């Protein structure tokens, strides 16, 4: 249909799930969308009509208004394909709004949103039963109108999916038509049918382009459903990780998988689900606040990765949640582009490498990395935790209250258990792995990490290349997913490019979040959130990068943050870490209203007052007020007496802690 063709962005993203270059993992649309959405507003009340018109214009939609339903219907009929969505009042003198709804559904397959001053449930119910996509109650606010594009997308997407799975189109049509004629809902079905048909046409066109052999011929009977067995999914995931999540096109995946009888459509729909799954994971993992996988990266560097897969499987098998290969592959994929060495069963290497390369999403990284520090021994997982904790005892005590439960004591089993539970098996596998290989070297590092991570609920994330930010030292902190990054002198830094979009989305929920900015990733954006007033902070904080150019930017941010210090901003300044560097705690973390202002890392060349940045002299912080802890401490002080500082300001602890350990190691 013309309407469909007019929305290239939508159709492109929906028809084939092809990834595009935008940063949003889920809905792949161009940056302009939904600007220019063509809306038709029908309301006999001229006041409301004028107001809606203005509001919609402000949403960058393209508006046409009409005060009579009959005129509107004619307009829709004459100009098919000129509108994307219809907003209609329920009570109109010349035609009932619901009748208009039915007509539009029948003839034009457009999403229709009803409006009314009558907000009674019965009235709303009637609207829904008639097939309205949504029912808005006057007075309508601009925010509600901003979201109407969702209905357009959702409708098309659902139709698309329906088509994929439904098999023969004709059968469905006939069936539905036969049964539903007499019902109110008939309009909905017919609408759906129309859309399905339209979708099918679009998909045909698209698939022809791909040279797909799959037949769209409705005459073919229902396609046999493909069962995605573990092996099959494993192959799928390995293919996807080989290609890279962004470049994973169903066709190429199909080629790589080389499974006879598997169609591109099967792969496409499975890919769609997979992405949803990843997205969900990322949301979950963020809540848990795990370490980034960059941590693993560090491990890998020092030693040969070993067979993570083994442990993975063990761990996973123990928990029995996710098939290890799947999970491992998942991680590999999430972690970014593995260098192509991804072998599912022994996932370690690619995972680690991937982590180095800057995974796109933090999510699973968090989850994965989270458990790293905890597990030390190759043996029993549960045993490790206490052990790990013990090793970091002194540090922990120094940390004071902040990590989790108690002053300085990380309750091993409970915490770790919690951790493990939260972060899932992956972590265990990872931990195992880490333990095995580079144990001597990494132990102290791991220690630190571990210390910082004790409380999943607090979600202190320690990531090698991230800033370590205690998520909650006291009530003042908000747990959120604070990805903390510590810059190590290894390549950790490079590894995880956090998925800032994820973070930012978090922050948008007005929850605390900490943006980590991994170095080297130009497109990372820092997410600083703040908290009830994130607006002031976040925008200024976005798009941080390592460059000194951003220093000014960050400085601005920092000052903004500092100004908000009264509240608690767990601000994580962009972590422009220096790869070579040592620990850079680039966290703009406002721990408390006290002297500890933001622990902020500011890029080179910026010196931000009261910003705590721990770093080594050779690294970026040359101009920074390095080590300005509590606003006054200098770097040296930090270096030499970290523990003291820890105790004083437990909140600031981790970054310092990390540095401390680092020095101890080196």
């Amino acid at each position, binding site marked *: 249909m013309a309407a469909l063709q007019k929305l290239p962005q939508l159709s492109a993203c929906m028809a084939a799930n092809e990834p595009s270059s935008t940063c949003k993992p889920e809905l792949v649309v161009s940056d302009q969308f939904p600007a220019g959405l063509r809306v038709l507003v029908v309301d006999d*009340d001229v006041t409301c009509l004028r*107001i809606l018109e203005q509001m919609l214009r402000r949403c960058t939609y393209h508006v046409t208004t009409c005060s009579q339903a009959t005129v509107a219907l004619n307009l829709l009929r004459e100009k098919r394909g000129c509108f994307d969505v219809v907003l209609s009042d329920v009570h109109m003198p010349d035609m009932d709004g619901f009748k208009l709804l039915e007509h539009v559904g029948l003839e034009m397959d457009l999403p229709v949103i009803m409006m009314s*001053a009558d907000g009674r449930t019965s009235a709303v119910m009637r609207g829904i039963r008639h097939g309205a996509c949504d029912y808005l109650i006057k007075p309508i606010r601009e925010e509600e109108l901003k979201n109407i594009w969702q209905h357009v997308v959702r409708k098309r997407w659902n139709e698309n999916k329906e088509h994929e799975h439904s098999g023969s189109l004709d059968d469905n049509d006939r069936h539905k038509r036969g049964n539903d004629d007499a019902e109110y809902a008939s309009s909905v079905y017919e609408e759906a049918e129309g859309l399905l048909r339209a979708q099918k046409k679009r998909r045909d066109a698209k698939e022809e382009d791909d040279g797909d052999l799959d037949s769209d011929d409705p005459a073919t009977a229902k396609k046999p459903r493909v069962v995605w067995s573990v092996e099959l999914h494993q192959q799928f995931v390995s293919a996807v990780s080989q290609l890279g999540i962004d470049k994973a096109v169903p066709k190429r995946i199909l080629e790589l998988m080389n499974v006879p009888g598997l169609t591109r459509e099967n792969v496409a729909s499975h890919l769609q689900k997979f992405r949803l799954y990843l997205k969900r994971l990322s949301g979950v993992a963020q809540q848990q606040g795990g370490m980034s996988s960059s941590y693993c990266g560090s491990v890998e560097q020092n030693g040969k990765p070993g067979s993570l897969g083994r442990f993975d499987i063990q761990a996973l098998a123990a928990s029995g949640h996710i098939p290890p290969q799947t999970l491992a592959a998942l991680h590999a994929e999430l972690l970014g582009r593995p260098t192509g060495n991804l072998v599912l069963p022994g996932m370690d290497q690619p995972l680690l490498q991937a982590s180095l390369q800057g995974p796109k999403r933090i999510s699973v990284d968090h989850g994965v990395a989270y458990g790293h520090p905890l597990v030390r021994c190759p043996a029993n997982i549960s045993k490790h935790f206490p052990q790990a904790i013990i090793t970091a005892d002194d540090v922990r005590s120094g940390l004071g209250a902040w990590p989790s439960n108690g002053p300085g004591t990380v309750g091993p089993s409970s915490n770790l258990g919690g951790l493990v539970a939260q972060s899932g098996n992956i972590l265990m596998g990872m931990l195992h792995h880490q333990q095995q290989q580079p144990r001597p070297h990494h132990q102290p590092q791991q220690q630190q990490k571990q210390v910082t991570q004790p409380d999943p609920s607090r979600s202190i994330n320690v990531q090698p290349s991230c800033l370590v930010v205690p998520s909650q030292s006291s009530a003042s902190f908000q747990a959120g997913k604070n990805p903390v990054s510590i810059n190590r002198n290894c390549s950790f830094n490079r590894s995880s490019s956090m998925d800032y979009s994820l973070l930012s989305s978090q922050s948008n929920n007005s929850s605390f979040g900490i943006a980590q900015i991994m170095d080297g990733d130009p497109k990372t954006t820092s997410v600083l959130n703040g908290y009830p007033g994130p607006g002031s902070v976040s925008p200024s904080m976005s798009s941080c990068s390592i460059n000194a150019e951003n220093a000014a930017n960050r400085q601005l941010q920092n000052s903004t943050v500092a100004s908000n210090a009264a509240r608690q901003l767990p601000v994580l300044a962009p972590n422009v870490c220096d790869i070579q560097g040592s620990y850079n705690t680039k966290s703009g973390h406002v721990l408390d209203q006290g002297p500890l202002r933001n622990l902020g890392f500011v890029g080179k060349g910026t010196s931000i007052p009261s910003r705590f940045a721990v770093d080594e002299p050779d690294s970026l912080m040359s101009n920074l007020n390095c080590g300005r802890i509590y606003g006054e401490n200098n770097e040296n002080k930090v270096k030499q007496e970290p523990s003291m500082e820890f105790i004083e300001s437990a909140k600031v602890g981790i970054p310092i802690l990390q540095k401390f350990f680092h020095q101890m190691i080196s």
Partner: protein
Amino acid sequence: MLGLGADRLRADMNRLLAFLFHQGVLDEQFLQLQQLQDESSPNFVSEVVNIYFHESEKLLRNLRGLVLEREFSDYKRMGIHLNQLIGSSSSIGAKRLTNICVAFRAASDQNNPTACLRALELLEHDYCYLKNKLHEFFQIEQQRVMAAGVRYPIQN
């Protein structure tokens, strides 16, 4: 000095608005209207309010006609008019008017003529009040624009 006039007038406007808010005559939807006003629609608020007055007076006349009918029975039509009045009043933020209309609608649903009449009287009274106040508001606004524009044609 010269700009003081404009500033004072703006202060007057704000005071009036605050007063109306405090009384419950207006609510934050009115603020939304003000926010919708921009360079592309510089007179948006007054435009919309004038449309509202125009339309509402028609509706009020109809309602009065229906309520004062000898055979006071067309509740359905009354309900329709009221719905529209509720929609437009709430859309511009006329909170008190909206509430009266809602009560009016309830009385109409219950087919209660006395209550309808009382509601109508209250409605008309409040409508006049709102209209006067908003006229006043726009007058001050006009003066403010003139004061700001005349003295400092470049500045704003």
